[in-house]
């Protein structure tokens, strides 16, 4: 009985979260491909931007897996990854305007993710909202 109830609430919780996880997966893939390419080919042009690209790729991968897993531990990891991402996109977004020389080449987070339709700035907000909602349910 309690098992079947847990099952339904689990399925319900996943609903919209599946789309969120899929978008995170696409960003994890895109950021990883981009970071590998730039680190391999033009690392010396803008090392700061490219190291950040690699860091953001790692955070997207972690967030994708953590969001997909259930349980308190993974929820906490997901929340930390998503908050890190939010701080990252705000910090890098601001720095890319105040210190453009550090970001001569674009990274996922420069210009608050303008090159990616601002999805990198919106994604962590949606992620936090969904984590809060799932936790309450």
């Amino acid at each position, binding site marked *: 009985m309690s098992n079947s109830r847990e099952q339904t609430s689990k399925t319900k919780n996943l609903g919209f979260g599946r*789309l969120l996880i*899929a978008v995170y997966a*696409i960003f994890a893939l895109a950021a990883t491909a981009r970071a590998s390419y730039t680190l391999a080919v033009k690392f010396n042009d803008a090392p700061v931007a490219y190291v950040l690209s690699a860091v953001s790729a790692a955070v997207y991968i972690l967030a994708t897996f953590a969001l997909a897993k259930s349980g308190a531990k993974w929820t906490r990891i997901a929340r930390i990854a998503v908050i890190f991402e939010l701080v990252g996109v705000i910090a890098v977004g601001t720095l890319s305007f105040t210190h453009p020389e550090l970001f001569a080449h674009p990274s996922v987070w420069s210009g608050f993710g303008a090159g990616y339709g601002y999805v990198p700035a919106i994604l962590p907000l949606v992620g936090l909202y969904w984590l809060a909602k799932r936790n309450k349910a």
Partner: protein
Amino acid sequence: MLDWFYSTQLWVALAIGLITLFMGLFGKAPSDLTVGGQAIVELGLVIQLVVSIVLVAAGYHAVNDTAEFFAYLITALIVPLGAVFWALVDRKSKWSTVVLGVSALTIAVMLVRMHQIWTGVYN
């Protein structure tokens, strides 16, 4: 990139993406039709890959960066495969159809970016 093939591929990916997205939002689980749409998108990318290899072999190259162009193309080839895999694992959810739609729309965006890299219109 051949211009006419790029345009066709872009509009097909956009149309498939939007139709699939709406079918998902209106509650349809993945079907032969929506998974077939991904097959068309993937086939287009494979053709694009072959065409691009032939063009490069014949001495053409991307105005910006040929390696980056191929990095995008190879990444793009993975996206519909992942989306279909997702739909096969989670075959009863409407969200799987939404994911298929997002996949095709992602390909449309990546095609635009690939065209920019190839033609050098925009850095």
